[in-house]
């Protein structure tokens, strides 16, 4: 029988070129040649490079590939920080959302920076809550029932009266940190509206305009 070579039998070609042949980054070749060589097995692109990158298999790779990775993925992986913004606390947290008929805790990462407090959800990316530090007027820790267990939650009041309810694992730490960064006296008693009260002036969207507006302190 005669051997065949079908041009488009891609699997055979992939097998040879990705798994076999000489490689430059093999130690022996570098030591034999003694010159700067680099090379990367791109098998990963086919085996789901993104997964490999996420699991840090990247570590052992070339610096240049890491640079490529940083460039390619940085925007998607990091948080929406602005220039000069410094993260003071980053912790897993959630915020109570009671817009309309949906009452639920929305989880994400809570960031306290030198000028903002915000809750960021990575996937799908969404800013769940954001407040400028100078708009915070009141701060209060309060014990609440959560699935029949008591836990501490943080209530925060903005200058337009909006009240948000936040949960993080260490409420005390967050509270202290916010107090320190804000650097002004905060009201430590907040009138929390009962859940049954029909929501009206405290709805986040109803005061969104005011937060961004000209109403300063």
């Amino acid at each position: 029988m005669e051997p065949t070579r079908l041009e488009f039998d891609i699997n055979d070609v992939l097998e040879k070129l990705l798994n076999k042949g000489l490689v430059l980054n093999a130690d022996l070749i570098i030591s034999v040649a003694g010159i700067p060589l680099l090379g990367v097995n791109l098998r990963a692109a086919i085996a789901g490079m993104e997964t490999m990158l996420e699991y840090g298999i990247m570590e052992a790779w070339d610096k240049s590939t890491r640079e490529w990775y940083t460039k390619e993925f940085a925007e998607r992986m990091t948080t929406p920080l602005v220039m000069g913004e410094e993260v003071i606390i980053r912790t897993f947290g959630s915020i109570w959302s009671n817009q309309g008929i949906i009452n639920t805790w929305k989880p994400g990462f809570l960031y306290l920076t030198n000028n903002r407090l915000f809750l960021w959800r990575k996937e799908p990316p969404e800013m769940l809550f954001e407040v400028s530090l100078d708009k915070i007027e009141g701060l209060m820790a309060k014990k609440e029932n959560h699935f029949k267990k008591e836990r501490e939650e943080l209530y925060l009041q903005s200058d337009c009266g909006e009240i948000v309810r936040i949960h993080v694992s260490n409420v005390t730490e967050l509270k202290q940190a916010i107090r320190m960064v804000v650097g002004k006296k905060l009201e430590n008693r907040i009138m929390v509206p009962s859940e049954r009260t029909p929501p009206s002036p405290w709805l986040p969207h109803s005061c969104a305009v005011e937060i961004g507006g000209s109403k300063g302190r």
Partner: protein
Amino acid sequence: MSEAELVRETEVTQGRYVYCIASCQDELSLGNIGIGHAEVYMVSHKDIAAVVHACQAQPYASMNENEVKEWILSHNTVIDEVSERFGTVLPFSFDAVVKGDDDVVKDWLSKGYEKLKQELERLRDKAEYTMQIFCDQNKLMDKIIGENQGLRELKEKIEKMPKRAAYLFQRKFELQVKDAYNVMRGRLTEEFVSKIKEHVEEVKVEKKVSQLPKNYKDKKLIAAFSCLVHKEKVKGLGDALGKINSQEGYAVRFTGPWAPFSFVKLEGV
């Protein structure tokens, strides 16, 4: 100044993508047959040459599977083209990028010359061929059960049993068949190797085989080999495989010639 020379001059292009090493003393251009239509040319030292294109000093990377596949096919096309013109090459795996310009490549060739030259000589007039041997599933099963008395008896016993009891024994039977299959596969592999041995310089038993073409899907893969074959022995190998192929229930897939991807080595040469 040609386009390639211009690219070579540019500041950002301080890498050389290496396709293969060939026996050639001239610094020829092979035209825009490279990855992304790059101009492929040869950088030589004495009578050996690296087949390269000028690129940035970073590996090719893409999240697009089709793009990567296209690159890989281009790489293979270059290797085929060079092999056809200059004989057996030392093929590089995909995405080997030398950091530096033509001088760095030249320097590398001169330092590794003895070893590269020796390897080119060793592989001269030889190419890689791969073969996969398949067997019809039912035929294979009959053969396994036919040869194994224990399995035969168990099967007869199961057939006489009431349904419920048979179920457990059926599982046991299947496990034993699996074991027997592995034993037989090992034996058949040895048998095939002995049949093709005289026609090949070297043989490698492949443990893993990536996806197989559709027309073999209903068959069981029994053995896969890569062989280094002298060009004058290809016909003999083909005949030996033809004999296996014509046995009832068997099918052989025979591909080549390939550049010696599985056999090229530089350590300790």
